[in-house]
């Protein structure tokens, strides 16, 4: 079979200047650098991708997996020509359409129908194609009645359905998709997945990034695993998923300072995170019932003092089931007495871990009143092993997610 995408020695370098940590680059800074001092130390090189080579055959469905910051999104952006590569070469045979976001260019003031035209043309459909598919798009999205209502009056579910529906009716030879199935309600997600399978059945080449391993497993013939911007393997899906899941757990602490895929204002930035077990050791493997600490180091960027930040660790299973948010704000432990120090760490102590055996990760988030300052998803992966949670000597059933302290008695006095 012929090769549809051939990536050879691909590399992408970003220059991060320290002043970029401030929100804007101002012309004054630039002039200052030009005339007053050439401060080359203030620029760091950062290779988001390095030496990536793989081939995708025509009609093949390839998943791209890797931890947050592995370079998956950068790879997709290069393949979709949004950003330039720094070295290497890519050969692409066929027309590429990329779907890195659902509803790109949607305008809230325009009606559903107007947005179908707009979004369709942004995704590369011609007016004739859009006209031909209009009926299908509308019925797939289930928005018949609201077609001539401005999208700002839609519920978020409806907007997402409409957006996905337009995208699902693209017919390129090569489709590049980033994590777009994680939208809408469960029923619609299922429908989307079905649609994606249809697309793949028609012999189109698909490159697909997702954190939902089931979706990857179901959809992809093979997978590429990336780690810290480097190519690890390209093999059949089940092998790569296994390798990914086991590789995710070998870090006992994660350096967050150079992760690019983060959101927020950036006045507070996370630099490191880890978990400590009951003996104070950093480890990615803990036991149910252990007393553990989740720790994150942060630094303040800029001189502005910050008061009363709310830190949170959002714990999820590796299959993306959200388990709980740990937050000093909801727990009532507010840091409001004084300005927080420029550098420090926040510690969340959990006296007895109620997670059952399984693989988990947590996101880190910090917000100040009215703003998210820093938010990194999948900051840390960890495993929970069976432990004597109930101090009873009986290990719980491992097929459940959560353990709860409980007291039982048999009451017969009223009978």
């Amino acid at each position, binding site marked *: 079979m012929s090769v549809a995408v051939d990536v050879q020695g691909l590399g992408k370098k970003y220059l991060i200047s320290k002043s970029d940590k401030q929100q804007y680059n101002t012309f004054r800074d630039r002039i200052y650098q030009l005339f007053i001092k050439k401060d080359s130390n203030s620029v760091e090189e950062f290779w988001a991708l390095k030496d990536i080579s793989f081939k995708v055959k025509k009609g093949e469905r390839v998943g791209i997996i890797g931890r947050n910051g592995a370079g998956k999104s950068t790879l997709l952006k290069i393949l979709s020509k949004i950003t330039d590569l720094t070295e290497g070469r890519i050969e692409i045979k066929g027309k590429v359409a990329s779907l890195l976001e659902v509803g790109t*260019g949607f305008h809230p003031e*325009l009606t559903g129908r107007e947005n179908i035209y707009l979004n369709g043309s942004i995704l590369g459909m011609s007016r004739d194609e859009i006209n031909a598919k209009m009926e299908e798009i509308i019925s797939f999205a289930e928005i018949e009645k609201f077609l001539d209502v401005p999208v700002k009056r839609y519920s978020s579910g409806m907007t997402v359905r409409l957006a996905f529906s337009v995208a699902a009716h693209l*017919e390129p030879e090569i489709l590049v998709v980033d994590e777009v199935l994680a939208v809408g309600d469960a029923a619609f997600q299922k429908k989307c997945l079905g649609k994606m399978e249809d697309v793949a059945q028609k012999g189109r080449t698909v490159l697909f990034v997702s954190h939902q391993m089931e979706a990857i497993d179901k959809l992809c013939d093979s997978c590429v695993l990336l780690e810290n911007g480097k190519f690890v393997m390209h093999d059949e899906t089940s092998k790569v998923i296994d390798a990914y899941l086991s590789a995710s757990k070998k870090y006992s602490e994660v350096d967050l300072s150079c992760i690019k895929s983060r959101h927020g204002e950036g006045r507070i930035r996370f630099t490191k995170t880890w978990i400590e077990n009951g003996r104070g050791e950093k480890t990615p493997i803990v036991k149910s019932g252990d007393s553990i600490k989740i720790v994150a180091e942060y630094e303040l960027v800029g001189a502005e003092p910050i008061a009363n930040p709310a830190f949170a660790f959002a714990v999820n299973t590796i299959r993306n089931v959200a388990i709980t948010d740990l937050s000093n704000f909801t727990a009532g432990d507010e840091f409001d007495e004084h300005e927080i120090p420029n550098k420090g760490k926040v510690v969340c102590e959990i006296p007895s871990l109620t997670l059952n055996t399984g693989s988990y990760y947590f996101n880190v988030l910090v917000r100040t009143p009215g703003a998210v300052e820093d938010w990194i998803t999948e900051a840390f992966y960890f495993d929970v092993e069976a432990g004597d949670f109930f101090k009873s000597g009986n290990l719980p059933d491992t097929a459940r997610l959560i353990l709860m302290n409980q007291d039982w008695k048999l009451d017969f006095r009223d009978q």
Partner: protein
Amino acid sequence: MNRIDDNIEVLEPGKRFSSYWGELWQYRELFYFLSWRDFLVRYKQTVLGVAWSVIRPILTMIVFTVVFGKLAKFPSEGVPYAIMVYCALLPWQFFATTFSEAGNSLLANARMLTKIYFPRLIIPASSLLVNLIDFFISFVILLGLMAYYQFMPSWKIVFIPVFLFMAMITSLGAGVLIVTLNVKYRDFRYVVPFVVQLGLYVSPVGFSSNIIPGKWQFLYSLNPMVGVIDGFRWSILGEGYTMNWAAFSLSAALTVLFFFISVTYFKRMEKSFADII
């Protein structure tokens, strides 16, 4: 999707994907759709709707006629002062809105820029089309105004498209330069309203270029809008209006040069937009 199977596209560092202008042509439908979006959005949820594109030039004309014509008593070139002012307002309004919209267009569409590929020049360029529609509406008012004053325009009015084209080149050239700088240096957001505000007085909108003393004419025509506005007056006002062709040629030449410099700079920076915006 009938493409030849051997059509292999190669991505390499710094390499242009295909012919720049050819690709722009391929994406012309996106250009129409973006213009159409801007047009629809501009007057949605406004009570008066398109009437705004009528009210703005008329009010400005009245104010300028009163201030410059009646109070300052500037010469009117033998035509009603209102018409002289309005002839200049047409291209000026077009320049001011196109320039400001184009200048902010990439920031306003930043999400699109980081999520999808298309020739980036489409975004600032699409502000041209919307403002052309406004221009035509304003032009109809000019005809009404001429009827009211029973003023017969000269036959040279057929040259209006030439000067309109020059106004387009000027607005796009300035807009494209600012938008490129704006992506990296947000300072330029503040430059746009400043240029528009100051430009209104530096350009011969409320008065005729002929009141500028001869020795300053040359310096004065370094402002490309001087050429455009003089051209509009020359086409519409007829015999009474004398035109300094040497100054005009300088204006026109500068406009074209400026446009090419802007677009070249844009093309050079384009590929890094998604990384730095």
